[in-house]
């Protein structure tokens, strides 16, 4: 009898704690988590359209009645970390570059691409006193890159243009923060990374020998706003309103390029770096959420490229198995923004109506 009572007491304790932990099911989730790639300055804030959403509390405003809390989660493991968290249902929405998003979907992760992004540049940097002058000269050198990210994808394209492959260089997998340090300390000979390279160059620590800037749009990255398929099925209304809020944020980010660049310095990036990186590119282009011809063509070609390089094991039909424009189309219509952002063609030009 004593044993039985003790056992029951233990279970009671466990169940009580469990109840506290998980709460009880409601019509709406109490918390919705949005995955963001952590910046290299370790500041947990977003930029661009999602940055305006966050800064203006647009989600809280939209879902005030339901009392839903929105948590922005800044993941240091970048895009692959976002996929990991989505797979474990630790996130409901996530934004990441095309390589991790595509690789995630290709490996069976049930996500939907519900809005797009485009225009991320990759820079090829060497230590300031390096003798390397051209991309061709990096053959046989130690190359730092964050594997599995859009910079990895850009590296494949740049190497190919110069008659090289991954096998011609010694790849070192480093995260975004470490790759900067590795160039400064000369632990790698070459690094492929984002526009932080410009700040490193301005500080006299690096020299840039190539970039995707002013290259055809295929060289730049695309990305997407993802939602877990299960979440979208369960809460279609929430996803619809979430996308509407995201479109509002994208609209605010598209209004004034210089104001948006200044706003984007909130994550620690230098204004000069952002200004140079986006030179000649309109805010309308950079902040368009559309899943248009350019985005789709880029995605399809990326799937083929990643399969060829063994980064994914199977391909999939992006249009049929991944893209869901229903939420975005509804949001654009409701906000009367159907024609605000142009549709871009495969080369990044405005499509004629």
């Amino acid at each position, binding site marked *: 009898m004593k044993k039985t009572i003790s056992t029951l007491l233990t279970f009671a304790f466990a169940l009580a704690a469990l109840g506290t932990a998980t709460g009880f099911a409601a019509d709406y989730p109490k918390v919705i988590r949005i995955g963001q790639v952590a910046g290299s300055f370790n500041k947990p804030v977003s930029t661009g359209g999602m940055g305006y959403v966050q800064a203006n509390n647009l989600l809280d405003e939209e879902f005030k009645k339901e009392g839903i809390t929105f948590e922005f989660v800044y993941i240091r493991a970048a895009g*692959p970390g976002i996929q990991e968290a989505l797979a474990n249902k630790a996130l409901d929405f996530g934004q990441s570059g095309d390589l991790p998003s595509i690789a995630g979907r290709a*490996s*069976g992760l049930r996500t939907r691409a519900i809005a797009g992004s485009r225009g991320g540049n990759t820079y090829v940097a060497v230590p300031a006193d390096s003798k390397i002058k051209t991309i061709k000269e990096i053959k046989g050198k130690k190359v730092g890159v964050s594997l599995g990210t859009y910079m990895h994808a850009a590296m494949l394209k740049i190497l190919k243009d110069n008659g090289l492959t991954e096998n011609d260089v*010694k790849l070192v997998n480093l995260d975004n923060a470490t790759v900067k340090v590795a160039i400064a300390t000369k632990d790698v000979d070459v690094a492929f990374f984002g526009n932080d390279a410009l700040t490193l160059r301005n500080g006299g620590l690096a020299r840039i020998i190539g970039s995707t800037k002013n290259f055809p749009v295929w060289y730049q990255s695309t990305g997407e706003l993802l939602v877990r398929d299960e979440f979208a099925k369960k809460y279609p209304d929430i996803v619809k309103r979430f996308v509407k809020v995201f479109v509002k944020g994208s609209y605010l980010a598209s209004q004034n390029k210089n104001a948006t660049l200044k706003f984007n310095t909130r994550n620690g990036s230098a204004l000069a770096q952002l200004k140079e990186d986006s030179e000649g590119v309109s805010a309308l282009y950079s902040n368009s959420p559309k899943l248009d011809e350019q985005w789709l063509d880029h995605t399809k070609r990326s799937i083929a490229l990643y399969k060829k390089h063994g980064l*994914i094991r199977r391909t999939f039909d992006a249009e049929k198995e991944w893209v869901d424009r229903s939420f975005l189309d509804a949001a654009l219509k409701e906000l009367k923004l159907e024609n605000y952002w142009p549709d871009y063609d*495969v*080369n990044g*030009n405005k499509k004629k109506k």
Partner: protein
Amino acid sequence: MKFRMIFSWYIVGLLLLAPAAHGEDTTPQTVTEQLEAAPQEQLQVQEKDEPFDAGEPPATQSELQGVRNELQVLRDQWQRGLDRTVVQTKRLLAISGTGQFGYNQIFNSEPSNASTFQVNNFILNFKGNLRKDYEQGKDIDYALGINASNTLKNVSVTDAWLSYQILNSLDKEGPRLSITAGQQKKYFGLEATATEEFKPTISGAQFATALNLDERDIGVVLAGDLFPANDYGFNYRVPTVQYYLGVINGTGPNAVDINDEKDVFTRIVFNAPVDYSHPLRGLTLGGSWYYGRKSYSAAIKNTASVTNLGGTTTTIPLADTSATQKGDKTRWGVDLSYVNTPVGFTFEYVQGRDLLVTNGAVKNGVTLTKAAFRPVTEEGITFTLFYNFGDQFINSIKNQDRWDDWYPLTYQPFYRYDRYTPDLSHTNTHTDIHTFGFNWFFAPTTKLQVNYNLKKEYPVDKANNQILAQFQFGF
């Protein structure tokens, strides 16, 4: 004129033969071709936005000088702090520790061990790197650990090893191989290999202690893997095969060998080579084998009868002697585990073979009980089932940028069945422990564990169920 016409038709012909405007094959392949094919209007957008510094006065030289001075002051302060208050080491060093403070209550009739607070272990670890190879990751690492156990009365070395990556450890798609020399864990099964941080239960499985599998030993271990599968979308690498081969003293964590023969062990693990989001991620099948030679020792109790002056005879103890016999010490085991989120299980079966020692007794030079050595086969079985509520085991969620000292709260109820049979020729003599447990991860590397052990001893059961609670904290 004729030439121009032919040339024009040639151009028209080429245009007609050109493929349609969609698909990968039609897209210009080189940068130059693409730039010529499409001038990219978005790169030529006229900037209509307001200038960056509209309405703001330019900075003066004195203001710039002020900023420089502030930077200089900050740099000086930082350098002074480094010189005076920052601990320095000759090489990269990470200091970590694990403490275990617990409460233990046994429900039996003996008042001496009814309940107690205790510090089970306090482990201090120093780990670092002696050589960092950025090119191929052929690093040399070291570790030194100190453990104060048994309510802090005994202090011993728990880890003291040097490790070298023989193969390229940065190549995700290639095999890996390392060699580790020194005092370290033995790679045998799941229970003995898991570190304190990852064990769900407070007490280890019975067989791990009884067969000396959970104690560290001194020797050299090769550890490697083959045929890795990579899922780049998740930065996930899983080797299809992992193997371990060790040569050790076999005498325990802090002892020299007592014979010329070394103990050897090997372990092979097959992991499901699947993508991260595959339901079979975390499924592994393992097999382990251990062989050693041991000098088994039996005590011989010597006594003698003495008749005193009064004529009474009493028995007095004489100096004990012993008998020894060399024998094999073998263990083998298989294990199956599925460690995924939120649910997982582990199963382990182990058999050991030793010599069972019977102590002897001699009285007045006559053997009453002969010291004996009989081969005996032991058996251990454990099964653990757990469920996680929370994000403790999702690396990307644990490693995020935040302003606050946030941590994913996680709750882990589990059940473990643990049977140990000390002699398989008497299968009715064994002990079963059913553990109902709950782990609450409430801070980084810190958890509260509550275990209720329902203990059944066969063939004669005694009342000795147990409740254990423990804070395990790390830094």
